[in-house]
């Protein structure tokens, strides 16, 4: 493999891979260009990856004069932050008790958790539960149902398994209780896997729109960026996919729904691009590990 001899085969591969790159990146660049182009000019068509009449108007519309979109952005950020923190606390605590072989209810808890990977109530029973709990149009509907995922707990637990038992035993002899051991020894040593799961949780929360659709549709201040985007898309789809100026709600001044839609798309993508370099370091190993385990 070390010998460098480039053949036709290598060149062909290079072209093919370049093609994959273009196919993946072009749509994002195209949308970025449209979002930065003058809305009226965009209607003429023909924007590729460079804006023709550069403007920030579509963004200033979202951040400046549209309270609802600003609220949606705020709610997206809030649910991502709160959901990630609570999710991490829950998963690590549960994973730790499962990683302790001497825990008296270890098997039973593990059993209860694994079952949930195979059977779930389904859409309607879940909906009825949320209704009975009074979580409709409540912020907690973004947090509570998503607190624990069996898969995440199992990944964290397998990582904690590799922490030497001697460490916790010596702490025990020094008089530390189980919670202290968890907090002072296990958590600091598990930071890599916690970072991975935290980023997965954050991406999941940020991308979620269906719970808003189902449980918080009638609440204006619980709306999220993904949900607003979904609504604009939904309006556009009625006409068979071609965007016309239907959504009067966002129509104002220099801009039109299509341009606003592109700007929201970019705003909803940017955080993913920002965590991407950090994410990237961990998730390949995380995924491989998870795959080997299951």
């Amino acid at each position, binding site marked *: 493999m070390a010998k460098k001899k*480039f*053949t036709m*085969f*290598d060149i062909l*591969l*290079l072209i*093919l*891979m370049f093609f994959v*790159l273009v196919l*993946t990146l072009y749509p*994002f660049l*195209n*949308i970025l260009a*449209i979002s930065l182009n003058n809305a009226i000019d965009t209607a003429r068509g023909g924007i590729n990856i460079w804006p023709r009449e550069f403007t920030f108007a579509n963004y200033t519309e979202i951040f400046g004069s549209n309270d609802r979109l600003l609220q949606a952005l705020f709610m997206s950020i809030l649910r991502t932050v709160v959901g990630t923190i609570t999710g991490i606390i*829950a998963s690590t*605590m*549960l994973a730790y*008790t499962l990683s*302790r072989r001497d*825990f*008296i*209810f270890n*098997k*039973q808890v*593990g*059993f*209860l*958790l694994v*079952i*949930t990977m195979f*059977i779930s*109530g*389904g*859409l*309607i*029973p*879940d909906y*009825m*539960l949320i209704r009975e709990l009074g979580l409709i149009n409540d912020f907690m509907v973004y947090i*509570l149902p998503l607190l*624990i995922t069996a898969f995440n707990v199992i990944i964290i*637990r*397998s990582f904690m398994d590799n922490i030497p038992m001697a460490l916790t035993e010596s702490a*025990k002899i020094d008089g530390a209780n*189980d*919670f202290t051991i*968890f907090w002072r020894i296990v958590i600091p040593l598990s930071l890599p896997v916690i970072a991975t799961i935290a980023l997965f949780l954050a991406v999941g929360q940020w991308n979620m*729109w269906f719970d808003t659709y189902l449980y918080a549709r009638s609440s204006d201040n619980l709306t999220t960026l993904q949900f607003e*985007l979904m609504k604009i*898309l939904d309006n556009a*789809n*009625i006409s068979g*996919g071609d965007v016309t100026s239907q959504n009067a709600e966002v129509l104002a001044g220099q801009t039109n729904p299509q341009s606003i839609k592109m700007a929201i798309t970019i705003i*909803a*993508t940017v955080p*993913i*691009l920002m965590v991407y370099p950090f*994410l990237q370091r961990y998730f390949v190993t995380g*995924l491989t590990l998870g*795959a080997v385990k299951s």
Partner: protein
Amino acid sequence: MSKHMKASGEQSNLAVDTATKIGLDKKAKKPQLQPKKNGFWKRVNNQKALILMALPFILWLFIFKYIPIAGWTMAFQDYKPQNGLFNQEWVGLDHFKDLFNEPMFYQALENTLGMGILGIIFGTLAAIIFALLLNEMRFQTFKKFTQTVSYLPHFVSWVIVANIVTTMLSQDGPINAVLMGLNIIDGPISFMSNPDLFWGIITVSDVWKEMGWNAIIYFAAMAGVDPQLYEAAKVDGASRFRQMWHITLPSIRPVIIVLLILSIGNLINIGFEKQMLLGNNVVADKALVIDLYALDYGIGMFRYSFGTAIGIFKSVISIILILIANGFAKRIGEGRVF
């Protein structure tokens, strides 16, 4: 195994097996902190902190995971929310009979399986081919860059992907422009309002979104292939293409089979996000999948019992599919999941 595990039926055996497989039970590998002769209550007392740590989440599991499973009883009742949990009229299998008499249900089933099968075939093929080609790349920096870019779409939501797809496929969008520029078509195709194209659009967007991500696991498996095999093949004069075909592919066959089994088990669980976001009134017949059907009829029309029956049907099919796929894998003697 404790008593209550023995008591439950086949389903729990499945779960216990898996629990053992993924290592939840391998206590033998680690020395226990306390000798077994300690009494039960003494151990409880010693592990107060651990119990307190697990307790809230066990409660959570019961509320958010087990109560909905208990909610399956709704399918056998004429459930009316105002009557509370225990004051419902039992109707036996009536809702299931209704379901099987409903033509829409068969439409939904056909669409779910159709898009599911297309997704498995093209999703798997694309990921394997991409991983193979990436594995053969010589230019390290470009290789890394391509891989990094390839899983970017996995991390954006289906809302964004749906937006990208409709933009790309719109009448004056880039795809139509390219096709017209190459003189393949005379006028723009309205992709999104052609029912015949809907399954294809879903499949292609799925491949676009998940190809790079799915390839990670094949790529990782390829990295583990013994380099000596390639050396030997080279001595025998095998071309790069023959090396891919006779060494790389057979080496990752167990991984391919395990993943195929898993995806066959999930065939019916293709979800509804793509279909809901990319569908519209014109293509509704081709976009209706089982979950959407449950959503529209169950929640949309307040037919909660009917919707629950759909969910149960789906779970049963899903378990049968898992067992079939697993049994098949056992028979051909390849890696099996359980």
